């Protein structure tokens, strides 16, 4: 373990952290602008040219609000809740391959913090821990509505975790690896000339992609699955008692979750840092250009999915709670099991 390695990883971690924060910050702005577009309004346009400084103004407002703590015997847990939620939201970014190999200062770098060989289940582990932030926060608020909101959020997240895990198994049967880097490398370019078919997994596992996308919506508590924050029934859900930056953490972590889940969808199904014409770029401009354009391609995919989240939010109305549970347990889980069986059969047939 030389110092160069530490510097490389340290720089990478700081850069990824900063980018995640920046994108989450501007996702709030984008959400308001896109909502305005869908509802034929102008949207925020006062702070800075075109409202570009609006997120900073929002953040400043959050910070300067009164930090109210309810009368609860569990002050420590009340503070721990949002912190835990934020931490788990950020943790997953460590295993995502943000780009291909680059060659700088005579050394080869992978644009990824940790290339562990259990990356996919690591993500599921972190997601399953993410439930605690909501649960502890909701319980420590000492408020019935918070508790009900927390229980709703948790049962929803646990239910959809199962379908999510099962849908990914059919993809893993094709990849044969759990490392996200290798999964990315398998989807090289856009068309796989050996197999005469697109190399991205969305064209091989469309059903798994649809199930995964639905579950990602439920996991991030976005519309049409934003039952935990249903204000007509539960006031603010699990963060009813939170104010100031603690509430900000909950809301902010939701946007980080959105960004990270978009990244995971892009890596698993849309080729990650791969794009059409990689061979040509490699021959013309070399390896660094390939990696740079790969990062750009990955972020374009991520931005598309963030936009998709917002698009769905203003298009599809909210489900009822029993509909949500029926969809999760009676539709998505059997479908993903069916998908596993079909995938296994097709793999055996093609052998």
């Amino acid at each position: 373990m030389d110092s160069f390695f530490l510097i490389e990883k340290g720089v990478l971690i700081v850069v990824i952290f900063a980018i995640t924060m920046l994108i989450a910050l501007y996702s709030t702005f984008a959400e308001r602008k896109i909502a305005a577009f869908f509802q034929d309004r102008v949207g925020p346009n006062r702070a800075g040219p075109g409202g570009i400084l609006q997120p900073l103004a929002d953040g400043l407002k959050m910070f300067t609000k009164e930090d109210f703590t309810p009368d609860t015997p569990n002050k420590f847990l009340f503070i721990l809740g949002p912190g835990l939620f934020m931490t788990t939201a950020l943790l997953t970014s460590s295993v995502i391959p943000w780009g291909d190999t680059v060659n700088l200062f005579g050394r080869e770098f992978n644009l990824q913090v940790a290339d562990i060989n259990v990356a996919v289940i690591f993500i599921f582990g972190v997601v399953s821990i993410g439930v605690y932030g909501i649960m502890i926060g909701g319980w420590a608020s000492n408020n019935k509505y918070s508790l009900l909101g927390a229980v709703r959020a948790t049962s929803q997240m646990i239910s959809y975790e199962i379908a999510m895990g099962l849908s990914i198994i059919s993809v893993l049967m094709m990849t044969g690896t759990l490392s996200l880097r290798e999964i990315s490398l398998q989807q090289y370019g856009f068309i796989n000339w050996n197999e005469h078919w697109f190399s991205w997994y969305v064209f091989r596992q469309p059903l798994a992609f649809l199930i995964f996308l639905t579950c990602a919506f439920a996991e991030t508590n976005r519309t049409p699955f934003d039952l935990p924050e249903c204000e007509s029934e539960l006031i603010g859900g699990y963060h009813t008692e939170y104010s100031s930056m603690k509430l900000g953490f909950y809301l902010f972590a939701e946007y980080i979750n959105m960004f990270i889940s978009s990244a995971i969808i892009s890596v698993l199904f849309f080729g990650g840092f791969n794009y059409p014409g990689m061979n040509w770029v490699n021959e013309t401009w070399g390896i660094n250009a390939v990696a740079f354009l790969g990062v750009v391609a990955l972020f374009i995919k991520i931005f598309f999915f963030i936009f998709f989240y917002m698009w769905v939010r203003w298009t599809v109305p909210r489900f009822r709670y029993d509909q949500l549970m029926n969809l999760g347990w009676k539709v998505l889980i059997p479908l993903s099991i069916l998908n596993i069986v079909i995938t296994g059969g097709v793999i055996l047939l093609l052998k």
Partner: protein
Amino acid sequence: MTLYIFYFLSFVAIFCGLMTVFSRNPIHSVLYLIGCFFAIAGHYLLLEAEFLAVVHIIVYAGAIMVLFLFTLMMMNLNEQIEKHKPALARMAAVIASGLLMLVLIAILKKADTLTVATNQNDAIGTIKNLGKILLDEYFFPFEFASVLFLTAMVGAVLLAKKDKSKVAS
């Protein structure tokens, strides 16, 4: 380095385990138990069993403990409601745990000193080897275990279902 991490993780695991027992509030107990699970997952990582560590977190900390927490939160147990246990029950608990400790000490005294397995095979805990071993060498025990789980699941569903004859009357 590894030794210090081991001591730290052991300290956390034992501390959390003790606090699980000594906490008055059942929810705090569960949270300490989760901390204990994380420390044990760290031990797995030290043994280079990454898959086991992550699955341990997913299954125990991510699923079972969430359900525990669920039930406890819904029942709204706290210190005030907890009854004082009768003296007889306390005595029984002390005797039972004392006997268990005696047995454990007796076993550990008789046991051969284990030779520490040095890393003969670095990749022993990786998911590839684990999958090969589970679905090849230990195929039948593995499948039997899964059938056992299925039985338990069917039984749970059966218990949770409403008795239709009673509902009708």
